[in-house]
């Protein structure tokens, strides 16, 4: 036990929490944007995977990190807009289409990978690039804090920036107001002349860009290659994280960090001779517990709310 504590209470551990949380943070923001616009779907896994692949590929071909990221975004948008077309225009079930698109992305990337390198496992033989790590001047020299916060991948810093940007876009811009209106009451939006379909496509597109960065991070940061099915459920965990965070940026960020901490803890425990399988299952179990916990909380608060409404009405009646 002491060993565990000794391993956790180190700056390196907190550094790794941030490192492994990055895709979840980005993913949960993407899910949040969709959820706010009433377009929550389950194709994030496929969007991220496609982005990871195209990011790797574009960077290898162009030898430019920036173009690599743009490639990733294009790859993510492709899946997202397919979903939008089928769901919004052809009126198909969003969940079933999502399942199929995830399969499509999974099979498609492996297919293409094999064509490229005759290997179905990883792209490590391709000269793809990684997004650089950034040492933050001044901060990096502060003991402990410097170790935790400095030296992360540029996309990790971008993730935190995007949490703020998500807040800004969703809660502080006219577009965000319209996205939320369409999400909650499309009839109300239409009644004041808002083009509901257009807003929904915009919602999907913005969220896909954010999710794509999570994919890019996986193949151009977290690892320096693409490997098959490398998202390993992170797209779904992101949905759970924003669920737990009640579709609010800061709580969703915290939920992502919590899931990340469990994963980082698992990594630490693995080095301490604990059975690795049980440890690897931890993040998923944590997510399940989180989902149950959220459901419980939501039930309680809705009970509380209806009770409050009743009491208020009773009080008013008695007064009158």
């Amino acid at each position: 036990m002491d060993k565990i504590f000794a391993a956790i209470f180190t700056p390196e551990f907190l550094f790794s929490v941030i490192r492994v949380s990055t895709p979840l943070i980005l993913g949960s923001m993407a899910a949040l944007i969709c959820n706010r616009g009433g377009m929550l779907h389950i194709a994030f896994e496929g969007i991220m995977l496609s982005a990871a692949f195209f990011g790797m590929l574009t960077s290898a071909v162009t030898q430019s990190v920036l173009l690599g990221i743009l490639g990733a975004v294009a790859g993510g948008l492709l899946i997202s807009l397919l979903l939008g077309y089928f769901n919004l225009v052809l009126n198909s079930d969003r969940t079933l289409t999502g399942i199929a698109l995830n399969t499509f992305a999974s099979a498609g990337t492996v297919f293409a990978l094999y064509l490229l390198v005759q290997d179905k496992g990883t792209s490590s033989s391709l000269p793809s690039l990684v997004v650089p790590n950034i040492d933050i001047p001044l901060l990096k020299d502060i003991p402990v804090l410097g170790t935790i916060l400095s030296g992360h991948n540029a996309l990790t810093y971008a993730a935190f920036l995007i949490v703020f940007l998500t807040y800004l876009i969703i809660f502080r811009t006219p577009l965000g107001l319209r996205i939320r209106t369409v999400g909650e009451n499309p009839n109300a939006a239409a009644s004041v002349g808002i083009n509901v379909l257009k807003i929904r496509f915009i919602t999907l597109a913005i969220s896909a860009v954010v999710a794509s960065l999570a994919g890019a991070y996986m193949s151009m940061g977290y690892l320096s290659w693409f490997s098959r099915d490398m998202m390993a459920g992170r797209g779904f965990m992101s949905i759970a994280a924003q669920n737990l965070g009640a579709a609010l940026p800061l709580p969703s960020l915290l939920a992502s960090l919590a899931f990340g901490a469990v994963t980082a803890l698992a990594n630490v425990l693995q080095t301490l001779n604990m059975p690795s399988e049980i440890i690897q299952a931890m993040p998923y179990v944590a997510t399940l517990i989180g989902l149950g916990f959220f459901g419980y909380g939501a039930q309680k608060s809705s009970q509380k709310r209806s009770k409050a409404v009743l009491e208020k009405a009773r009080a008013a009646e008695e007064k009158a």
Partner: protein
Amino acid sequence: MEANILSMENITKVYPNGFVANKNVNFSIHEGEIHALVGENGAGKSTLMKMLFGSEKPDEGRILLHGKEVQIDNPTVAIGYGIGMVHQHFMLVPSLSVADNLVIGMEPKKGGLYDVERAEEIAREASEKYNLKVDPKARVVDLSVGLKQKVEILKALVRGAKILILDEPTAVLTPQETKELFIELKHLKTQGYTVVFISHKLHEVKELCDRVTVLRAGRTIGVESVENVSEQDISRMMVGRDVRLDIDKEKAQAKDTVLRVSHINKVNALGKQVLKDVSFQIPRGVILGIAGVEGNGQSEISEIISGMDRSFEGEVEVNGKNAREMTVRQLRENGVSHISEDRMTYGIVGDGSIAENMISDRYYKKEFQKGLLLDEKKIAGLADDLIEKFNVKCDGKDQPIRMLSGGNMQKVVAAREFTSGADLIIANQPTRGIDIGASMFLRNKLVELRDGGAAVLLISADLSEVMEVSDRLIVMSNGRISAYFEDASEVTEEDMGLYMLGLKQMEPEEIRRASC
């Protein structure tokens, strides 16, 4: 004579299913008046207003605004002409603040961002100017219905509405909230705004409005200055039987009691008391009708008796057993059957076949099992038999029910609910929206069931139906029984109108007769 700010001339609207909602309707309003639009359910008020607000298009007739003909193709155009509508189902976003809701679609900006302060300022200014007090920062979800309605009114006003249409605004309000609303509307009137006020409540019309237009069965019956007419006059104009139904029935033979409802009170989720000390009983061999304008507690009664709703105070007894303790299935086995007013949600499973829809209350019974499986032959036999007996027009028992017309769908529902051997049949708006042929068929069936010894509870907003099919009659108004008639055939339309519209209330002793 004052100038008409707006007039609708010779408006006719026929819906695709052939229903004539408006026929040569004339409707005009003066600038700065509060104009009441009254009529029974289905008289065509909503359709008329929808055309004014651009959500429907008239087939004939024209709309004049300030004397000029205008085309109102959609709500945005209507808003542009200064017409605002406050819907019964609020067009608000619950999680947003009041200010946000007011400015959606015309958001103030500062440096590319949404200017919340400005929005709140707009909200505050409007709130003060129109004397509609709401906190701009409050989230709509936390507001009472009355406050939500204020937000809706403000939303129309900040978009430049000069003519406000309020669709039954008081239906959801408590008496205090109603009082407040009237003060606010009168204030708007003094500022030169014009209000169209749709309502069933004649004392409200009398108290608030300047003129009143009465619609009945899709036609204009008259336009009067409110001071020149009494509530009784308006009621007489509104309420009338559009057709004489020829229901062939003997006098009812009351036997032992099947349903006993005692002292039911219910407060709904919004905190409004929707049922107030309701008691009645129905014996075998009797059709008890509940008449009333929709939304006066009838739906709640049918939900409670059929076991779909358990949050109420009071007692319901069916065949001597306490209904509250029973599941829906147990209730059905104890002799209750139920035609819901919401056919598409509760009455049928659209993707299911006609046969599947016919057996949903009895598929589990022994007679329909053959070993481990359902006895398809028996089910097919039953379905074919019912299709014939109830004269369902279809391509056969395997056709998905969603492909049938409303009337035939309802016949399938009735075929199920009327043949379960029930002692109590709850028929809630059984003929709404279906053709005359099917309606007459179902009404005669109800009488047949009564003669077979069932107790029937008929809830209907259709006055002809409820007056002529029922043996005994309850009138509901505002969640309360306002009248009880031992013999439905002796009631006049005029009396019905007075009790339905809350102008008259029987003494408690008279009403008590309903429960003994």
